[in-house]
């Protein structure tokens, strides 16, 4: 059996800490940059231009309909071939690009859903007052949509924390990568339980924070 889980954790906790920080960091980068890109995709999907709609829907469906691991492999091996100029960039960035693109597809649907959840009458009232389309969006629709969007975005961050475990496959220093490091020291099963435990603690804490956020946002209803 080898040393106990507790012994392994006490001896190697700096490695797990570094892995946890890596996981939180990559998930944060993926969701925040994914949100900016996702907002653009949402606008494309909400526009009245049928061609833009089609492009947006293809983008979302491809990224949501194929496994993230496949997307990471494609990014990892194909980007250096397709764009040789990027060869000098670290491989970390390729994997992050896959994470960001993947996240943007989910976020765009979150934003689109949030905007669509605002009653049509709100838009009609604003436009009937002579408000411009952009003022209607920024002053009337988005402030109301944000109540639905923020909790869903936080949930996307929680999901992304688990998704980033795939990045360990490509030697990105996150939680799952600590398994590889410790397996080299012939510690095979103990790190797995520690890793699972850390993921669980992270997601439970964040889910609890999301519930508080949801309660705060619903106060003004």
């Amino acid at each position, binding site marked *: 059996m080898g040393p106990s889980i507790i012994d392994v954790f006490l001896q190697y906790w700096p490695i797990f800490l570094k892995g946890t920080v890596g996981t939180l960091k990559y998930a944060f980068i993926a969701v925040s940059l994914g949100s900016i890109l996702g907002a653009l995709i949402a606008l494309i999907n909400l526009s009245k231009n049928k061609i833009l709609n089609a492009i947006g829907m293809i983008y979302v469906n491809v990224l949501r309909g194929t496994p993230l691991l496949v997307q990471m492999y494609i990014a990892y091996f194909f980007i250096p071939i397709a764009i040789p100029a990027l060869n000098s960039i670290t491989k970390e960035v390729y994997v992050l690009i896959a994470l960001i693109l993947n996240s943007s597809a989910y976020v765009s649907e979150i934003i689109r859903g949030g905007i669509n959840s605002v*009653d049509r*009458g*709100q838009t*009609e*009232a*604003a*436009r*009937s*007052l*002579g*408000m*411009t389309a952009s*003022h209607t969006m920024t*002053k*009337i629709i988005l*402030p*109301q949509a944000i109540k639905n969007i923020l909790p869903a975005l936080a949930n996307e961050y929680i999901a992304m924390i688990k998704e980033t475990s795939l990045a360990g496959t490509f030697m990105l220093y996150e939680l799952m990568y600590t398994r590889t490091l410790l397996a080299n020291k012939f510690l095979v099963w103990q790190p797995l339980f520690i890793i699972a435990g850390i993921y669980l603690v992270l997601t439970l804490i964040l889910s609890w924070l999301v519930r508080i956020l949801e309660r705060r946002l619903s106060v*003004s*209803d």
Partner: protein
Amino acid sequence: MTNTNEVLIETVNLQKNFGCLKVLKGINEKIYKGEVVAIIGPSGGGKSTFLRCLNMLEEPTGGKVIFEGDVLDAKSTDLDAHRQKIGMVFQQFNVFPHLTVMDNITLAPTLEKKIPKAQAEAEAMQLLKQVGLEDKAKEYPRKLSGGQKQRLAIVRAMAMHPDVMLFDEPTSALDPEMVKGVLEVIQKLAESGMTCVIVTHEMGFARNIADRILFIDEGIIMESGTPEEIFDHPQIARTQEFLAQVL
């Protein structure tokens, strides 16, 4: 009620289809400045769609809407600027739930007409007093009753100083005891000389307030005339049937 001969809104062969359903089948009508026009008719007859075409909330499938001499659906027309002069009140109030009563009223004037905030607020306070909501200025709409929300919606539209007010079944979503207060506000508005176009099921109110009644059914204006002509001596069988059902 001041009836001049100045045409405020004119529709020319106005048509609207939803898919293959023809809701408006070519309506030619003139609304004159200072006039109070009530639109009655059965549900699904096209009266709300007609009203919503007047400020282009529904884009006409064919024909024209001319407001103060400008064709509204022309590409060169600044629709937002024209809509500022066409107030609208909805059946479902559509007040902005994330804004206070005060901000509901001042948002559009400060944003689109660049009126200084202090001035807009002073004016909003005046309007709120007229409808008995002055003590609600800092509240959010969720604290208001249906009738209060609708009075807020009317005031919000008035704050843009429109040349005409469109009312789309303004009392249909209200509890019966709230109806009177809202109708009184509309009546006061009409008596002040505001041009009003009102889609309503309140026949007594329509008769009382309107200079002219339009009976719309099957996508056309079946009959129009003074309240006495329509209610006491309807000429067309369809109008007679409808009035027999609702009166």
